[in-house]
């Protein structure tokens, strides 16, 4: 039991990761795929933030009387990864807009049918 409770943040990471991954694979709607991709990436951000926590450490701001700080580096890394994630989402959604214009649908099985006619 303590295995679950002590590491609850990692269990959330695992759940979100698998949920996101499942949506990416199973969703037929392209916008839903992008949402799944976002959930998948967010789980990794949470994993990084969990790594940075030091037991009993305070926020990494230098102050008198504090000796133990949490590690700020994972936060910085994940700030970069969030930017990457936002850029990916933007490119993905832009593609969805153009696919909608070209095919008139964002359902994967429908535009595959339309291509088969060519």
């Amino acid at each position, binding site marked *: 039991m303590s295995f679950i409770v002590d590491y609850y943040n990692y269990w959330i990471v695992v759940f979100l990761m698998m949920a996101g*991954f499942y949506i*990416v694979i199973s969703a037929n709607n*392209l916008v839903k*795929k992008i949402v799944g*991709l976002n959930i*998948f*990436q967010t789980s*990794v951000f949470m*994993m*990084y933030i969990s*790594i940075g926590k030091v037991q009993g450490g305070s926020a990494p701001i230098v102050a008198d009387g504090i000796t133990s700080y949490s*590690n700020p580096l*994972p936060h910085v*890394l994940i700030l*970069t*990864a969030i930017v*990457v994630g936002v*850029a*990916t989402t933007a*490119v*993905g959604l832009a*593609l*969805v807009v*153009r*696919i909608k214009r*070209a*095919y008139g649908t964002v359902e994967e099985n429908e*535009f*595959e049918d339309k*291509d088969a006619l060519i």
Partner: protein
Amino acid sequence: MFEQHFPVLPIVLPLIAAPLCMLLGRSQLAWLLATIVSGISFCIAVSLLMVTLDQGVLSYALGGWEPPWGIEMRLDVANALILSVVTGISTLVLVYAKDSIATEIPQSQHTLFYTAHLLCLTGLSGILTTGDAFNLFVFLEISSLATYTLVSLASDRRALTAAFRYLVMGTIGATFILIGVGMMYMKTGTLNMLDLAARIGEFEYNRTLNTGLAFILVGVSIKLALFPLHMWLPPAYTHAPSAVSAFLASTATKVAVYVMIRFIFTIYGAEYVFYSMGMDVILLVLAIVAIFNCSFVATVQSNVKTMLAYSSVAQIGYMILGISLVTTAGLMAGLLHIFNHALMKGALFMAVGAVFMRTGSADIKAFRGLGKTMPWTMAAFTIAGLSIIGVPLTAGFVSKWYLVTAALEQQHWMIAFLVLIGSLLAIVYIGRILEAAYFKDPVQSASDKTIKEAPLMMLVPMWILAVANIYFGIDTSLSVTAADAAANWLFEPSAQAVFQSASQSASELGAAR
């Protein structure tokens, strides 16, 4: 004085030039700027290769922050060699692109093409030069995002769905790499590659590190289109504009192979990956299945671009095969094939692009009789095709020769035999096109439009690559020396021990923290 900044310039120059291309707004000006910047990067990359062949390693502390705290740009023979190839191909493709994209991409989007191309070059150079695992992920995503844009620029609507599929697969791959890097950081507390290598060496067997390695290898395998994870590649290369296919096929997946080599040999160490985890068997099997399955699928394609894309996946199999032999000779053959394959696939895709421009189709039927109407294009295609097959006096022969020798060195008769059978399949798929071009009569098109030879601006880069295929098949001194030095360097842990003292001081700091 200025030369000390050379390691970072192939990243910084295209990065600065990319938005400038956009601001220039005129297609011609943007083309000129992009080509010049890419050409300068190529010159710098070649000079860096010469320096690294001479002195070994070049280290550059970005922003003056000393590694392992700051981001280090680190060049050795292995990445300087691939950097020269990538920047060189980029320059040739840009020269080629001017006329090629004129027919394939709407006029208003030409500057966007050059911008995205330069951003992609930035990312690829960054992946190659960086000595920091997280930085590598960031550059990987810069290049990938630019790639998705490049693929989607084609006027064919199927390019959009191909780009979207590529985006989904690519992002999953990149996120897997991010997870793996996170796990390495969790255990070691560092991101600098050599520092990581030193600290991972202290662990005999560790579950976190193993999981990290698994995530990284799967992620990189998606990016390099290793056999079961390659499904994004054929549609993307088929529907992308020809210039983009030529650039991506000869650089993007090769850089991903480099990333795999870097993670396996520099960071984890061949011993950890191959002897403790037994990855060599998995890679070996996947590589051989890739060679056979994809060569076979290539033989039945009617679209020549799709055929070349499947052939690319098969050729990646040869590179991975070289790595999975776990010998210096095997790794050297793999690196050599990265170099040679860039030359042949670049030339092949350029030739197909020229055919597409003149006939409006990349279907095998469009190739009928082109031996007469487009003799120069088809001659270049033939040379590069022979190189893919591995005919003596071409570059492809050299790398296959070293691959077979490396397999025989370890008494793997079966593998050597399978490599040769793989070449036979290449004869089939290249042969079909040569047959159509030289032995069939031209199709009688409804319009009276006669098919002309491709413009000179497209023929010149195509022929530079075709001649390079022959040159590096006869005079192998540069490519083989560099690949050999790189393989030895990657395999020799003592060469990396120079960094030991610095990483020790970092460990002390880590302990104090």
